[in-house]
């Protein structure tokens, strides 16, 4: 089952098209990397898939339902999210808890389960001891971990991660890849991640989608390379 499909999508900024006739499909249970040089419209492609941008032409279809019938939960980590307003008055725990709001309901009381998921997310990324800190006081790498903890607490079906490893050291990056691999293998999630560090992650991926330059200057999807994954994708 396809989670998202783009067909002949054209999009640009101003009058200049940057993505031209881009087509791709992400299937349920895949671990996919989206790559390409700087300025290749990778973040734009993600935003188009999520409906945050409207294409000039072509079609984008994002499924609204999980195969089990419930609404599809999307965990999106935008590029540079960790560079948020350092004056934002929120504790780390409060921030990660906000990842549970959609699942728990906008008006309903939060359950012990929600608190447990927050603790789980923070412990996974090694930030539980920072739960009472103000988020603006953290370093860039720590903020990035907290943003990932929030996405984990959200328990999404579809992870959409725009350069999530920015500011992380090698050990953290490896741990992060294992974590995402676990989400695909054990929870049947779909992971789409923009990254430049292909060499580090290639062996864990199902596919790599590359944005390549066209002769007329725009970027097109997509050279799709099949990878030899370490696991059989779920679903």
């Amino acid at each position, binding site marked *: 089952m396809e989670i998202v499909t783009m067909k002949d999508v054209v999009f640009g900024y101003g009058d200049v098209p940057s993505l031209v006739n881009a087509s791709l499909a992400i299937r349920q249970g895949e671990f996919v990397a989206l790559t390409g040089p700087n300025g290749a419209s990778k973040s734009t492609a993600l935003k188009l898939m999520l409906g945050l941008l409207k294409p000039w032409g072509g079609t984008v279809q994002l499924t609204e339902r999980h195969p089990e019938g419930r609404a599809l939960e999307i965990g999106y980590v*935008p590029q540079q999210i960790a560079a948020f307003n350092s004056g934002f008055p929120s504790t780390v725990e409060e921030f990660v808890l906000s990842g549970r709001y959609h699942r728990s309901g906008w008006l309903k009381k939060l359950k012990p389960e929600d608190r447990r998921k927050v603790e789980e997310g923070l412990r996974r990324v090694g930030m539980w001891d920072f739960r009472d800190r103000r988020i603006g006081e953290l370093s860039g790498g720590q903020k990035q971990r907290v943003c990932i903890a929030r996405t984990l607490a959200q328990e999404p079906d579809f992870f959409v991660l725009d350069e999530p490893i920015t500011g992380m050291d090698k050990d953290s990056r490896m741990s992060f890849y294992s974590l995402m691999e676990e989400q695909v293998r054990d929870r049947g999630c779909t992971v789409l991640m923009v990254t430049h560090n292909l060499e580090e992650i290639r062996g864990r991926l199902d596919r790599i989608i590359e944005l390549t330059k066209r002769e007329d200057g725009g970027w097109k999807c997509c050279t799709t390379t099949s990878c030899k994954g370490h696991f059989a994708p779920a679903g």
Partner: protein
Amino acid sequence: MEMLHYDFMQRAFCAGGMIAILASTLGVYLMLRRQALMADMLSHVSLAGVAAGALIGFNPTLAGFITAVLGAMAVEYVRRSYKSYSEISVAIIMIGGMSIAVVLMSLDKHLTRSFSSYLFGTVVAVNGTELLLLAFVTVAGGLFFFLFRRPLYLLAFDEETARTAGVPVDRLTFAFSILTGMIVAAAMPIVGVLLVSSLIVLPAALANRLSRSFTWAIVLSIAIGLTGVFTGLTASYQLSTPPGGTIALVLLVIWLIGTGIHRGWRHFGKKKTEQAQANMQGSANAEGSWLAPEQPL
């Protein structure tokens, strides 16, 4: 407490308290969305409504209220056209509001005399309509902020992640803008066009700086707003100074003292932390390791 024996002072405290609660809460969200100047802009737009209302013989307070709400809707519309420069929408609508107000004022010479009451407010002369309108806005605003506190938190942090998390961003932003217009318009006849933003910006600016958590930022902002309004009203009564200006001045003094104490505290705290880190070889500030999937939590 002799002043509270007077009917007009009771009404002033009642109206001031309601505005302090609403404006201080609104201020936290406006500041985090980088729209602190929106209140200033809407109060100027509201002035155009007041002038139009007076000119055509319609209740100026209600006319100002309706215009501020329309202005809030317009600013949201223009903001979507200038996504990267949202302050431009504030400037454009403010120019429109002010220019209309000035032209309308010039058409009615009697109007300009009562205009100073809108510019500087008349909290001690709050009339029944204004109090009723304020009570309605307080109930509507209180319900809005309570019921939508979670989506508003997500919206204040980041619009894009809020949207993907299922927040109806456009509708919520629209409702928020309308409520902003309502709060500004209800507060304007009482504290005045020139001072309405002091009640929205100053308590929130200090609370956002001092609070560790979002909930506390709102609680503290309300507490600062109430302290400023009640102290300002008392000082205004005792010293026979204009209430709107006195309230704004008291809030400014609270902000200055609060910011000074916070800076001193941070400086002192930083030194202590550095010393502690030196003693513990920096381990106090180090994050833990990632847990591997097979590791127990």
